[in-house]
């Protein structure tokens, strides 16, 4: 783990000496017709590290997640997850990668327990259903249909499904957006319990990033504009907080749209 203000959990192994990154994004460019979503983006996520990806809405965060997950093929550059190509080696990557996508629903009419069982069937060595549900404190809601869960519970279930296959790399996209403080803290505790996994956390919540992440990458208009531990990013621009550093680097507040400047 690199130095920084991130409090990624006392059980998390030190990864500073490890040389092989768990995730490599190298000079990646992704375009949608005429719009450039990612422009020459490079980053490394070390094994066991929690890397935060920050940016305003439309900065390219979700495109980055989708490219790492193999849902989008980059126009240029390469992506590797534990040395595997997410597009060419799709199935192999899905076995080691757990993804919680922003705004992806689940089957409304199925219960929590049925959804966990369904997703367990997709993996060779899944976590027991009880363990997956306990990780997100949903054991008591096992027999409740997805459509009857609160927003926070739906999000927690989505995280449980991302973790049910015992992934070595976990991608969490907008983990706590729209949730109340209690629900957010519950999900933070779940992330803090991931002591052996590599985590890529996409967020525009500064308190979340400062609490959970070892390092952060700040995206603006599809480009990386800052990278380092939260403390390093703050120091680099002479800001008093990560929130202020974000404002100085992007000209916008976290959560604003890309074209708001």
């Amino acid at each position, binding site marked *: 783990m690199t130095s920084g203000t991130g409090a990624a959990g006392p059980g998390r192994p030190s990864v500073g000496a490890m040389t092989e990154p768990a995730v490599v994004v190298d000079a990646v460019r992704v375009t949608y017709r005429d719009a450039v979503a990612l422009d020459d983006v490079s980053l490394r996520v070390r094994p066991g590290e929690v890397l935060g990806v920050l940016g305003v809405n439309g900065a390219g965060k979700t495109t980055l997640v989708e490219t790492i997950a193999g849902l989008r093929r980059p126009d240029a550059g390469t992506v590797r997850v534990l040395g595997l190509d997410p597009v060419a080696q799709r199935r192999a990557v899905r076995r080691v990668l757990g993804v919680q996508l922003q705004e992806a629903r689940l089957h409304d009419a199925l219960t929590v327990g049925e959804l966990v069982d369904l997703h367990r*069937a997709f993996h060779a060595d899944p976590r027991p259903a009880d363990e997956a549900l306990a990780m997100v404190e949903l054991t008591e809601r096992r027999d409740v249909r997805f459509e009857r869960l609160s927003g926070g519970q739906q999000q927690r279930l989505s995280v449980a*499904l991302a973790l049910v296959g015992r992934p070595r790399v976990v991608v969490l996209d907008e983990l706590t957006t729209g949730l109340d403080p209690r629900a957010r803290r519950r999900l933070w505790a779940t992330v803090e319990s991931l002591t052996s996994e590599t985590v890529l956390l996409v967020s525009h919540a500064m308190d979340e990033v400062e609490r959970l992440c070892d390092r952060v990458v700040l995206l603006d208009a599809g480009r990386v504009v800052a990278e380092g531990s939260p403390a390093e990013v703050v120091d680099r621009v002479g800001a008093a907080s990560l929130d202020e550093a974000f404002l100085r680097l992007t000209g916008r507040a976290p959560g604003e749209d890309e074209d708001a400047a």
Partner: protein
Amino acid sequence: MSTTTAFGALVRAETRMVVRDTAGLVVPFALPTLLLVMNAAAFGDQEVGGGRTVVDVHVLPVVVAVVVTMVGVVNMPSFLVTYRRTGILRRLAVTPVAPSLVLAAQVVVGVVQALLGIAVAYAVAVAAFGASPPSRVGALLGVLALSIAATYALGALVAAVAPTPSSAVAGGLVLFFALGTLGGMFGSTDVLPDVLARIGEVLPFGATVAALAAASGETALPVAPMVGLAVTAVVAAGAATWTFRWDR
């Protein structure tokens, strides 16, 4: 994970959702039975020769075509487009299973629904209206298999091009009524202009009705409708594969 285990889990999940959507069961079960009872009550005792009645050679084939076409081009695509629109396909696309397994599970559950609906229709026709049980079961099953392949391929094409669930239902219904009208759902196709009647004969609804009518008696299966079903299955499946989007 084995593909079989994942596929079995997907089929179980799809089955649960279909069973819990009780309103959706009206299409494969209640609607065809109602259609059968109305038509059989009006024309059921009319003999057409060889001991066969209008129920055997027209009403039952039309009811079967209604079940297969309705489930294939309306029900199945609306489910699939809902899955795509709400992000369920996208969510599954980041798991080790191929999203195409979801499509396959949908088809299996839809086919089972259609077969159960057909079995109910035959049971009611035999028990209540003295219809003859199918004598050439092999021919009947062969026609059904080809009919299901053709209509489901058309349904997959509807799912591929429809942007929203409501547009999938609308497109599916337009297709259903077009195929039904040209295929004899509302009465004899003799009243249609000759060219439309000829086209309707080889499109899935009319081809299914003609082939099932032949399969229910002793006559050979008609070539043009069987070829029409096969061509529709191949062409529509190819077009659906080419145009289908897993993401919004």
